[in-house]
């Protein structure tokens, strides 16, 4: 699946977008664990889960949401537009 990162998450991960093999992860929280195990950059980016929001196929979701069938997962901090 395609995984996107925005704002300081993008900076900490070092990429705005990447393809991730998420087989084995059934929820957003499990996907985060998979990513954190890959590289210390992800562990740093996802250190504080309270500061992280997620969208599944461009709809806001929570960390316990299932990701089966999802094509695009986006991680970002709380929004600050306007």
């Amino acid at each position: 699946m395609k995984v996107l990162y925005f704002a300081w998450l993008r900076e900490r991960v070092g990429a705005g977008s990447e393809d991730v093999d998420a087989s084995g992860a059934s929820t957003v929280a499990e996907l985060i664990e998979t990513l954190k195990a890959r590289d210390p950059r992800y562990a740093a980016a996802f250190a504080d889960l309270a500061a992280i929001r997620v969208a599944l196929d461009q709809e806001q979701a929570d960390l316990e949401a299932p990701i089966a069938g999802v094509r695009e997962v986006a991680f970002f901090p709380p929004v600050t537009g306007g």
Partner: protein
Amino acid sequence: MSVRVQTEDFDIRAEIDVLTQDRADIGAVVTFTGLVRDLAGGEPISAMELEHYPGMTEKALAEIEAEANARWPLQGTAIIHRYGKLSPGDRIVLVIAASAHRQAAFEGAAFLMDFLKTRAPFWKKEETPEGGRWVDARCEDDAAAERWRKS
């Protein structure tokens, strides 16, 4: 109804004209314009970079606009939000709500802004003398959106 996400500036008068031309059923137009300030938390700001999530941003704004139109008798609405690099004094965002009477227009415009601030995927980074700094979300904004929750 219209939603635009763009780098270019906008002309408030021209946007009002688009909503009101050739019709006489609109009695009230409320606009809100957000500007970049040169000070944040007591620190000088030299520039601001706005990032967004292309695709989701337009979708989220259209949903917010549809909800405002479902809740108030609005004859026209518009949301324009800029992204990219902006300087102090620059316009960031414009919302317009037009209605037969002022109350729906005032409330519709406030609702659009309150929900935009908590739901639309934009992020601001301020340039300060100490370097770039991502703006933190404010709990006042959550409280402002919460007051529109239907009981």
